[in-house]
Each structure stands twice: as structure tokens, then as C-alpha cells.
């Protein structure tokens, strides 16, 4: 009796609470995706834009952007791995080693760069890596002819710089949740620090690693700012191709076809990730996503 009374209003309450999110997703995600899908079968209008049609021409033209897709996959993978190797020691230090008193301030420092727009911070790197920046300092110590800006290396520097905090936080959270008694137990039972790390710390932080990697990888797949600024337009991501197709050539149908392809690649990657994390969880009921 009491239970029934409870569940009835709850039913309505649930619907009411879910309504804003549902509407948001309907109008801001599902509907635009449908529009993109329809556009991708259309034709470029004479002066640019979209003209209704039903053709697979746009999808047939996809190979012309193969290099951009390849670049994106390669740079997103390398960028994610570099961020991971840079972020893990930092997260480990913050979660397990640092004095409690400083933990908060150090965490804040990791977020501080987010207070300024990525655009401005990336623009600053043009000058740091440019001829009057680091290369000039290298000249002072006798290393000449170093070129940094507008190279693939510069793009990777920009990526690691921009995305590091996104990698640090999930790993930090997963490391911080580890029961310290487990580490002590391992130590008491004669495990070397290395063995403890490999058998306890690392497996227990895998969820954070996977989440961080996924966050960085997915965002990198859509990145266009860093390659445009630090690659000088010569390192070309699929995001740059999209900017080009919508903002310069005004070829909306082809841009839509490229977008749909990108969404499909993302969906495959995310479902692979889901499977991976399901396996990693091994019965533990805590997920970060």
C-alpha cells in the first residue's frame, strides 16, 4: 500500500526530471544528426551550401580525405599515449605521494590553465616555438638551425599541453580510491615496490587510464585548432577538413558525409572501450563513465 503510493508519484517525477535532458538530446543531438545524415546524400548547391538530391557521390569522394583521416588517427593515438605517459606519474604523485596539505593547491594548479581559452594558450605556443623563442635560446648555446613551429612535433607538444589535465584527473581519481591497506599488505607480504605497483596499483587504476585515454582520444579526433596553429596548416586533421568544407568551400553535403564517417568511427571506438572496461571491472561495480 505504502509502496504503491510511493511509486506512482515517482513515476511522474522521473519523467518530469528526465524531460529537460530528453528534450535537449532530441533537439541538440538527435535532430542535428538526422539533418547531417540527410545532407550527406545531397549535392553542393551552385554557390555552395546544400541542394536536395539522393546520391552516394559524397561518400564516393571520401578517399580524397584519406590522408586527413590517417593523420587524425595517428596523431590522436600518439597524442593519447604521450599524454598518458606524462600524466600517470603526475597523477600517481598527487594521489599517493604528496603531503595532504599541498594536495588541494597542486590539484588546483593542474586546472589553472583551463581558466584561459585554449585558443589563446595555443597561440602563445606559436611564439614560444617560433624563431625568436626556443630556437633562439638553443642558438645561444650553439645549437643552430632548429625548427620547431609548424612541424608534427609542435602539434604533439600542443596536444600534450592542451589535453594533459583531462588525462590526469581520471587517473588521479582511480588511484586515490585505492585502499591503502592493500599496498601495506603487499609490502608486509614481501612484495617489492615494483611488484606492488604492477599487481595492485596499476590494475586498480586501469579504469582511470581507460577513461582518460578515451576522453583525450575522442576529443583529439575532432581537434582542429592545434594542428591549424602549430602545424601551420601543413598537419591536417579531419577536423580541419570539416572546418574547410563548411567555412571555406561551403560543400555542406561532403562535409556531412565526412562527419557521418567520423561519427561511425567514434561509435566503433567507444563500443570497443565499453567492452574493454566491462572486462576490466571484473565484478567490481564502480565505473567512471
Amino acid at each position, binding site marked *: 500500500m505504502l509502496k504503491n503510493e510511493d511509486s506512482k508519484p515517482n513515476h511522474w517525477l522521473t519523467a518530469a526530471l528526465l524531460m529537460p535532458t530528453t528534450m535537449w538530446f532530441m533537439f541538440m543531438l538527435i535532430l542535428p544528426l538526422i539533418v547531417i545524415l540527410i545532407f550527406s546524400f545531397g549535392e*553542393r548547391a*551552385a*554557390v*555552395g*551550401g546544400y541542394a536536395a538530391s539522393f546520391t552516394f557521390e559524397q561518400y564516393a569522394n571520401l578517399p*580524397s*580525405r584519406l*590522408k*586527413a583521416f590517417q593523420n587524425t588517427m595517428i596523431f590522436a593515438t600518439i597524442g593519447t599515449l604521450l599524454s598518458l605517459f606524462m600524466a600517470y606519474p603526475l597523477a600517481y604523485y598527487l594521489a599517493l605521494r604528496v603531503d595532504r596539505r599541498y594536495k588541494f593547491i597542486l590539484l588546483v594548479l593542474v586546472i589553472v590553465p583551463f581558466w584561459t581559452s585554449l585558443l589563446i594558450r595555443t597561440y602563445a605556443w*606559436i*611564439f614560444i616555438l*617560433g*624563431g*625568436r*623563442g626556443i630556437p633562439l635560446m638553443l642558438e645561444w648555446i650553439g645549437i643552430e638551425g632548429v*625548427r620547431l*613551429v*609548424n612541424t608534427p612535433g609542435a602539434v604533439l607538444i600542443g596536444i600534450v599541453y592542451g589535453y594533459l589535465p583531462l588525462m590526469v584527473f581520471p587517473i588521479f581519481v582511480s588511484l586515490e580510491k585505492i585502499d591503502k591497506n592493500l599496498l601495506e599488505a603487499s609490502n608486509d607480504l614481501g612484495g617489492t615496490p615494483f611488484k606492488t605497483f604492477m599487481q595492485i596499483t596499476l590494475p586498480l587504476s586501469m579504469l582511470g587510464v581507460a577513461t582518460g585515454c578515451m576522453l583525450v582520444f575522442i576529443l583529439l579526433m575532432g581537434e582542429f585548432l592545434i594542428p*591549424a596553429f602549430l602545424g*601551420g*596548416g*601543413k598537419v*591536417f586533421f579531419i577536423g*580541419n*577538413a570539416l572546418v*574547410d*568544407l*563548411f*567555412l*571555406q*568551400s*561551403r*560543400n555542406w553535403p561532403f562535409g556531412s558525409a565526412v562527419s557521418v564517417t567520423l561519427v561511425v568511427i567514434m561509435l566503433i571506438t567507444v563500443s570497443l572501450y565499453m567492452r574493454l572496461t566491462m572486462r576490466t571491472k571484473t565484478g567490481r561495480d564502480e565505473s567512471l563513465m
Partner: protein
Amino acid sequence: MSKIYKENKPITSEKLMNEFHRYQKGSITRRHFLRVTGLGAAMTVLGTAMPSLLPRKAHAFGNLGNRLVFATWPNYHNQVNLDEFTKMTGVHLQMNAFGSNEEMLAKLQAGGTGWDVIVPTNYTITNYVNLGLIQPLDLSRLPNYDGSANDPMFAGPATVNGTVYCVPKNWGTTGFIINTKKIKSSPKSWKDFFDVTMGAGSGHTIVHDYQLTTIGAALCALGYSFNSIDPNELAEVEALLIKSKPHLFAITSDYQPGMRSGDAWMSICWNGDATQLKNDLPEMDYVIATDGGEIWTDFYAIPTGAPHLDAAYVFINYLQDPYIQAREASVHGYAPTDSRAIALQPDSLGSDPILHPAAELLNGLEFGAAQTMTDPVRAEVIARFKSA
């Protein structure tokens, strides 16, 4: 009006500009500036012709609202002028700077820009009119604009089918800039430009992220028209561009940082940027290519459905004032189309070969054509070049 002005001219134009810069830097007050330059006295005479100079309260302009959004190009305005406009009218300016006309068109086509004033280039105007993206101008609301003071060669594209849609801003050329400390061979043509790019200057050349100028330059280098939309010629252009790509420093329309840092030695360049660069770095040299290139005029236009129409008219009228135009040019380094404004420029600018090149140098140059903007092959060639 320019005649009255000249008769009253109390100081040399050189000195005027000096006072100008002092005023801009804030070393002297507006009142002092107007007094020493004699503009204060002149204004009582010219008050009706140059109303924007008169210090009026905001209500004198009626209710203009407090905001105006305008789309323009980078390094193209004098902040002093913009600040003064806000001070006089209470209208705050929100400026969007763009890298290409195509980008501006893309935003207008997508709709909902909220722009009140745009700065389109000659070759876009018939496209904008045909697409219904800009509205006819009511010249009675622009008393500072004097059609007879503008050379029809530059102002011509503003009129489409007998209706005036824009008023001219500045004109200029698209050539290339070289750092003469690094490039000794003194390239003269677009052919030389690409030869140096793939030779002695490898790794240090910038081309624009802009189909009009980059494809145009390659077309000229191959001996074709800057405006060609012939698919065969454009296929040759694509081959040339892709061949030169490994030798480029960058593909970007924001080439000043690269030229200033010394990383880039040569770049496709608009003449105003050349003036700005040369002012700071004397080793810079601007070249109008002997095998062709672009000559252009930029205009002020009001997009259809501009949300702050009254403010847009007052703003354009303000910027048409010859004195304001001269003050704009003192910063951005492009020549005004308006002879009244040219008369106000100091002699050093009036005879500057970058701003006012010899007439025979302009002979080989072409104005962009309307179909050059919308041609799908050109659009795809630049996109493939960039993604190659």
C-alpha cells in the same frame, strides 16, 4: 569640401600625422590635438560636412541601442576611431575578424550571424546581392559619403543593376613580401615566387589559406588568368601547389607572426600588411608580381536583417568621414579610395609606392571575378591541396 579644408590647412600634413600619433598614444588630449592641428577651428566651418568630428552627446544620434556587431579583416581599423565612436554614440562595437571572404559568405549563408556591418571585397558583391544577403543603402543617411570623390574603377562594384549596395573603404594589391636579408635573388614574378619556394627559400614560404590568392598566384605563375575557372588549368595549379607543399613554411592568412619571427622569408601579402611589416623591419620588400595578381577594393555593406540598422548607418557614415578615413589609413597602411581622405594623408604616405604603386605596375593586375568566389572546382582544389 576638400578645397575649404586645404585653404584652412594650418600645419603640414607631416606634422598633422605626428600630432596624430601623439594623440593616439594618449600623450596629448583630444582638445589639444584639435587646437594645434587647427581642426578645431576648421570644424566650425565643416561641422555640417563632418558631423562625426563634433563632440556630441549620445542622444544627438537618436536611440541607436548600445551594440553593433561588425565583420571585418584583421589589422584593418584604428582602435582610436572605434573607441571614439563608442564614446560619441554609446554604441559598443563587437568586432569579428575573418581570414577570407569565403568564410564570411559561409557564415552569412548559414544565417543568424547578427552582423550589422560587413566589409566585403569587390568580387563578392554581386553574389551577396543575388543571394539576398545584403541590403540596398539609403545614401541620404550617409552624408559623409561623396560618390564623386571615389574613382569609379574602385567604387564601381558597389552598384549592382543601378542600385548602390555598398560604399568603398580601401583599395589595395595582393603581391608578395620578401625578407631581403634572407632572399638575395630578388624574385619579381609569381613564377620566381614558386621557384624560390622550391629552391633557395625551401621551408620558409607562406601561402594564404585562401583560395582566391593562393590559387590566383599559382595560376599567374603558370601564365594563366588570376581568375581562371578552367578545370584543366586548375588541375595544373593543384599539381604545382601540391609539389610545393613540402617546401612551405605554412598555409595561413595570418602571416605577420611568421615573417616577424624570421621563420618565414617570403609570403603572399596584402600591401597594407607590407606597410605594417616594413615600418618595423626595413629589410622587408613588397613586390607586385610582373606576371599578374590581384587588385581589389573593400566596401562597407549592411547585411539583410541587420539587427541594429540605425547604428550601422551612423557607423558607416562616421567611417566615411575623410578625416576618420585618413586616421584609419595611418594605422592599417591601405590607401583610401576617397580623394578627400588621400588629400589629408601626409606626403610620405601619399607617395608611398606600397600604397600608391605606379600605374603601369597595376596594368597586369585583375579584380577578382564573381564566379571566382563560388566556383566549386577552385573550392575543391584548395581543400585537396591543404589535406594532401
